[in-house]
Structures are given as C-alpha cells and as structure tokens.
C-alpha cells in the first residue's frame, strides 16, 4: 500500500513527468486501489444490472512513437494492442459492455490525464479507460492505466507499471484487473496463467501434451513433446513448478517439473502408479493419490521431497484432494460408500466425513480460493459443473452439457474453468463460467484441450 501511495504521487503530474521514472511492478495485492468507499459495489452472482455498464477503452496514447521489441508497429501500435487485450479481458463476464479501440477515437497523449469527457458522454460511455505506453531508454516499457467515471467526470483509479517488452500483455492484464477490482470490489484475476493438456489425434489414441498459457490464452507454450502421454497438470502457487502425470516408460506416475530448468523428478520414489496431484495453497505440500494392489489412497509429501504420509485408509478409491485456502482442511473424492462422493477431512487426515448427499455421483471437488464454495463435477447421467458451500449445502449447477468436468477456480473465486467433451467425437475444449451460470465462454486454444488448472495471480 505504501508503494501504491508513492505511485499516486508520481502520477499527480502524470503522464508527462512520469517519463522514465522508475516504477516498480506492484505485486499481487498491492496493485489494488488505495481509497475505499464511493466505488460501485456488487458481486458477480447477484447483480444482473451490471450487464449495461458500458466502458470505452480507446487506444493507449504514446508521447512519441518509438520502436519497441513488443510490437513491430512501435509504441503507438502497441497502445492500441494494449487496449484490445483489456477489452477482451472485460468482455463476456456478464458485468461490463466494453468497447475497444477499433471503434473509438484515439485520445492524444495529453488527454490521458485530462479526458475530453464530452466526447465520451456523447458516445454513451459510462466508464472510460485511458492509458499510455512509453518506451524507456533501457528498452523496457512504462504503461499507465486510468479509470474515469464519465458522468462524474472523475478519476476512479490509476496505476502504472514498468515491464520488459516481453511482458507487455501483463501490463494490459494488470490494467484490466485494476478496472475490474475498482468497479466490482472483487479481487483481481486476469494477470494469471493456466496449465492444461493439449490434445490431438484420433479418439482411440490421443496425443496429450502438457501446455501452459496466459489466462486469456496468449503466450501459449507446449512443455512436453507428446511422446509420453501427459495428464492432470497443476501449477505451483509461485508458478515455478508443475505437477503432472506422465506415462513415461508406460508407468503412469506424478512428476514435479521445474519450469526454469526443465528438470523433473518423481513425486515419490515408488513403482506404484500415482495420480491426481495437488498443491497446498502455500506451496509447501503436495497431495497425490497412489494405488497399491489396486487400492487407491491419498498421500501428502513435502514439496521438497522426503517421506510421504498416508491420509486415507479405506478399501475404496480415495483420490484427488483440494485444500481450503487456510490449509486446514482437504476436500476429496471417495467411493467408500459405493459410488463417487465428496468428503472432507482435516489436513492431517483426521475427521473424515461425507459432504455430498444429493443423488448422483459427485467428483473432482476444488475448494474456491475465497473459501466460500466448493466446485465439483456432478454426475447424474450427464456431467455438470456445480458448486456447493463447504458444509455440503446450497448446491447449484453452473453448466448443462453432455460432459463437463474438472472445475478449476479463477484466482479470485468468481469464475470456474472446466473442460467439455463432445459426445461421440471425443473432442475437448476449455470453458469458463461465472458463478451465476449465465455467462459461459470458450477459451481459445490452438488444439483440443482438457484438464485445465488455473494458477493464482502472478507474483
């Protein structure tokens, strides 16, 4: 918060005086707006009127069109591109009606901190986003982001970031996060990444590769070649490692993959198959499930390695597991009562009890980062993504399709991502839905996609 205050001071005479100022990239929570009150409030789940909040997002201005490694068109082309990324972020979540730079006049650099409000009120914009981008002498970029209320002719929020040219999209996501947080009161989530499984090939023998991408599908990268089938990845909370299942040597086992070095190790030194890896919220622990003689149980091991602790010991299949945000409880899946159902236990394995009592099977529980909901796959003939509260009540379906499974939460706990399988063809795709269930959208991926895992807001 202190740092943000400094930024605001720097910005008072912005944007001109901000030229080549050192502006450290604010981290995580510090990027939130300083002042409280006076903002618009509401939540994703219960305010339909928000559909009509129109936001104009013209191209970001630049003081001088300069070449930058981030765009072949220089900083002025990059300014438009920044606004396009922000527009795409804010679209389709049921809250805003953003209009992007291609349909709007381009403000001049001097107007960024002094908008021509009459222009924007004439276009029925309720909110206005302005911003600028400047190339620094050291090759990095300074990006400023301003949010205005057009009717009040008042500034609601501003922030700024210095980023290497390769990270220019992060600046756009941080601006989208600033706008989203200021207008909804919710925590940010756009500046985050997703790990998933990229699928190609025939249904009977799919090639499955571990892949990662930004929350909007950009900066896509394949991690594995597909020679060994990869499944069920999970990003570590610091984004430095990935847990995933690989059929290396035809043995399905969980590996800990280090993104920086490209090295990987087994989660546990055993020839037994291991499945369903999960991180604790603080990144210190790993949950995995291991089958011994056909019986699967859940184990916990330190992220540094060492001996494992067995948390379940029933004859049924106990599998998966997702920590509550405070790390004290684990929600998991078990068929000890005859069919897949959701159970909860303390983090040491004690106090196991069933949560799901509503007919059908209930699988793949994932605790919301906010702690207030558990998302899961509800199987009653078709597979639907549903949520319930941590006591097992208040169940609501968010999707209604032939086979939707494996929900994973946005970092702020307001959006659930999952994958959808098409009947007969077996083709898969990633989807997002908000907590109302009304706003569903497909996330673009280069090839078919499954097993999504959404990481936290980037450090």
């Amino acid at each position: 918060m202190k740092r943000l205050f400094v930024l605001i001071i720097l910005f008072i005479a912005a944007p001109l005086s901000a030229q080549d100022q050192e502006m450290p990239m604010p981290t995580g929570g510090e990027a939130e707006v300083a002042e409280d009150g006076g903002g618009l409030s509401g939540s994703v789940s219960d305010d339909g009127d928000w559909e009509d909040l129109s936001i104009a997002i013209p191209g970001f201005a630049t003081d001088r069109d300069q070449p930058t490694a981030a765009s072949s068109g220089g900083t002025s082309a990059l300014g438009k591109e920044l606004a396009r990324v922000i527009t795409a972020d804010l679209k389709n979540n049921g809250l805003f009606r953003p209009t992007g730079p291609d349909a709007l006049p381009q403000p001049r650099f001097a107007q960024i901190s002094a908008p021509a409000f009459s222009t924007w009120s004439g276009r029925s914009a309720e909110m206005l986003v302005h911003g600028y981008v400047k190339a620094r002498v050291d090759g990095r970029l300074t990006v400023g982001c301003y949010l205005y209320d057009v009717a009040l002719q008042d500034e609601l929020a501003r922030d700024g970031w210095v980023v290497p040219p390769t990270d220019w999209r992060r600046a756009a996501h941080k601006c989208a996060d600033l706008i989203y947080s200021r207008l909804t009161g919710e925590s940010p989530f756009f500046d985050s990444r997703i790990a998933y499984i990229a699928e190609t090939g025939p249904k009977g023998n799919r090639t499955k590769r571990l892949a990662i991408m930004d929350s909007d599908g950009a900066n896509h990268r394949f991690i594995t070649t597909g020679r060994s089938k990869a499944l069920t990845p999970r990003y570590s909370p610091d984004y430095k490692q990935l847990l995933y299942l690989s059929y290396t040597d035809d043995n399905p086992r969980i590996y800990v993959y280090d993104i920086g070095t490209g090295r990987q190790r087994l989660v546990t030194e055993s020839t037994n198959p291991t499945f369903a890896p999960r991180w604790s919220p603080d990144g210190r622990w790993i949950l995995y499930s291991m089958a011994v003689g056909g019986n699967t149980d859940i184990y916990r091991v330190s992220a540094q390695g060492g001996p494992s602790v067995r948390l379940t010991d029933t004859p049924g299949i106990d599998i998966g597991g997702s920590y509550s945000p405070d790390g004290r409880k684990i929600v998991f899946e078990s068929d000890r009562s005859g069919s897949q159902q959701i159970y909860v236990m303390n983090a040491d394995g004690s106090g196991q009890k069933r949560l799901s009592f509503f007919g059908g099977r209930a699988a793949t529980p994932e605790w919301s980062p906010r702690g207030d909901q558990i998302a899961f796959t509800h199987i009653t003939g078709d597979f639907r993504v549903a949520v319930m509260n941590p006591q097992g009540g208040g169940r609501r379906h968010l999707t209604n399709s032939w086979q939707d499974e494996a929900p994973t939460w946005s970092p702020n706990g307001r959006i659930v991502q999952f994958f959808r399988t098409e009947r007969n063809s077996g083709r898969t795709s990633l989807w997002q839905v908000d907590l109302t269930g009304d706003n569903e959208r497909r996330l673009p991926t280069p090839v078919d996609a499954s097993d999504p895992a959404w990481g936290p807001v980037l450090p």
Partner: protein
Amino acid sequence: MKRVVLISMLSAGSLALGACSKKAPEELPPPPVDTSVTTPTASPTPTGPVPGTQAHFENAVNGQNVIYFDTDQYNVDGVDAAALQTQAQYLMQYSNVNATIQGHTDERGTRDYNLALGERRANSAKNYLVGLGVPATRLRTVSYGKEQPVALGSNAQAWSQNRRAATIVIN
C-alpha cells in the same frame, strides 16, 4: 459385452468352461463382430504364430485375452473367470512368458477416478490369475483409465466394450 465374450466362446466350441450365463441375453442387439479389437497380426499364417507372441496367446485363449466389467464394477464374474482360466493355462504352459494386464474404463467417468478404477480392474484380473497359480512376479498391471477406448462411439454398447482388462503377453 459379457455376451460378446460368451458368443465367441460358444462359437469356438472347444472349451468346456461352465460359464455362468446370468448376463447373457439382454436387450442389446447382437453386437458387431469384434474383429476391430483383435490385432491384425492375429490372422493365421501358414506356419502359425510363434509361441509367446500376442497373436499366439490370443489364438490359444480363443480371443479371451480381454475380460469385461459392468459400470463402475471391478469384480470377476463367471464369464471373466472362464476367460482368466484359459489365460492362466497358457501362462502356466509357457512359463517364460510374462504378461501386462491393462485396465480400462469407459469415457463416462472423471479422469482421476477412471485411472484408479482401471488400476482396480487390472488388479482384479491379476489377483485371479495369481489365485490360479500364475506367479505374481510374472504379472504387471497398468491403468489407462479412459485414455484408450477400443469402441469409439458414445453409447452403452461402446462403453461396455471399453470397460475391460486386457492381458498382453511379453516374451
């Protein structure tokens, strides 16, 4: 699917196995001949397959190298037991042959659970073979969950063909 196995057994007609027929006649129409499942190398050659190869094994067990399961189940029933007995006979006769038992599920389950369920099915078959005298050290299990369906449709008949444990011999 039990019926596919049973039919192939009856048509083979060479084994007196006393298979339990509790699940035989159901409402399903006769399933298509399951030739797509068997490997192309199974076609007889003038000299015949070499002992210890998968083709030789499948011939010797009359195509009963695969057993099938009901939805979410992993128990070995009468038909499965008959098939596993022929497999055990073969493995006892060719004591230098090891085998991998692959456990599979249909597509109508969640990914992680299906991996565990496939493992449970493979182990059911393995434990039965061990009970018949095949040394456990010669048998390995691997689960593919829902990753490798043999029938590609999304209907009850396809799913019944995919809920299986397949024995693959390794020379």
